[in-house]
């Protein structure tokens, strides 16, 4: 039963995409987000993706893998991903679960996350500028 709640909205800010996850993540929603983000990155030529999970109370191995897949996919499409606002209890549980998300940038606040995306972008532009 597809409905309006089966998609997580993606906002544009300059050449970045912003996603705030405010609903309980079911598996289908996580898969749809990967799909939607990959398409949105290409459509808008986005260079950065910021995912705010400060409202998310549980990240299990499936959702954790999805965050890793989003970062890997977006990187192939020339966009960096940063996950912001992870709750301490979620970080502790993910670590105990055995998930360290090595390829996903993280930041505590959205503001720090945006700065991280900006610096990643300027680093990647340096070689061609010289």
């Amino acid at each position, binding site marked *: 039963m597809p409905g309006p709640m089966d998609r997580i909205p993606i906002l544009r800010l300059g050449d970045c995409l912003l996603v705030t996850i405010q609903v*309980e*993540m079911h598996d*289908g929603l996580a898969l749809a987000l990967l799909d939607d983000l990959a398409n949105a990155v290409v459509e808008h030529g986005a260079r950065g993706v910021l995912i705010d999970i400060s409202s998310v*109370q*549980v990240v*299990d191995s499936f959702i954790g893998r999805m965050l890793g897949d989003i970062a890997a996919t977006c990187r192939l499409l020339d966009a960096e991903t940063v996950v912001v606002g992870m709750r301490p209890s979620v970080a502790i549980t993910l670590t*105990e*679960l*055995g998930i360290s998300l090595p390829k996903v940038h993280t930041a505590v606040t959205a503001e720090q996350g945006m700065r991280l995306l900006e610096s990643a972008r300027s680093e990647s532009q340096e070689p061609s500028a010289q």
Partner: protein
Amino acid sequence: MRVLRSETMPLRLKDDIVLARQLVRARAVEAGFSLVDQTRLVTAASEVARNTVDHGGGGTMTVELVSNDRGDTGLRLTFDDHGPGIPDMELALRDGYTTRGGLGLGLGGARRLVNEFEISSEPGMGTRVVVVRWR
């Protein structure tokens, strides 16, 4: 172990995994678990419930408020399915082992998030996973 309260819910569809998480969280909050322990228990429930739905062809989860002789309170979660069973238990609990393209951290990871973890399975008869977290 004394059972103070018991309730059972079906685990048939992917969406039931979300309902299972919500039920376990509600009971963990009521039982007075710390925030980190709530998160551990809900995450473990999510992992095992997904196993029940994906590999066991669906089943049930029973949530029980329990106490022991020392007066500790805990939550016991029992997951039953009538699926094909798990032929090689050691392999299924090993980190990185997966048959469905996941991270393979489901059952083995869930075991690290709880105080007690028991799994029994008979080929063709189904699988039962029992986890307990004490407060």
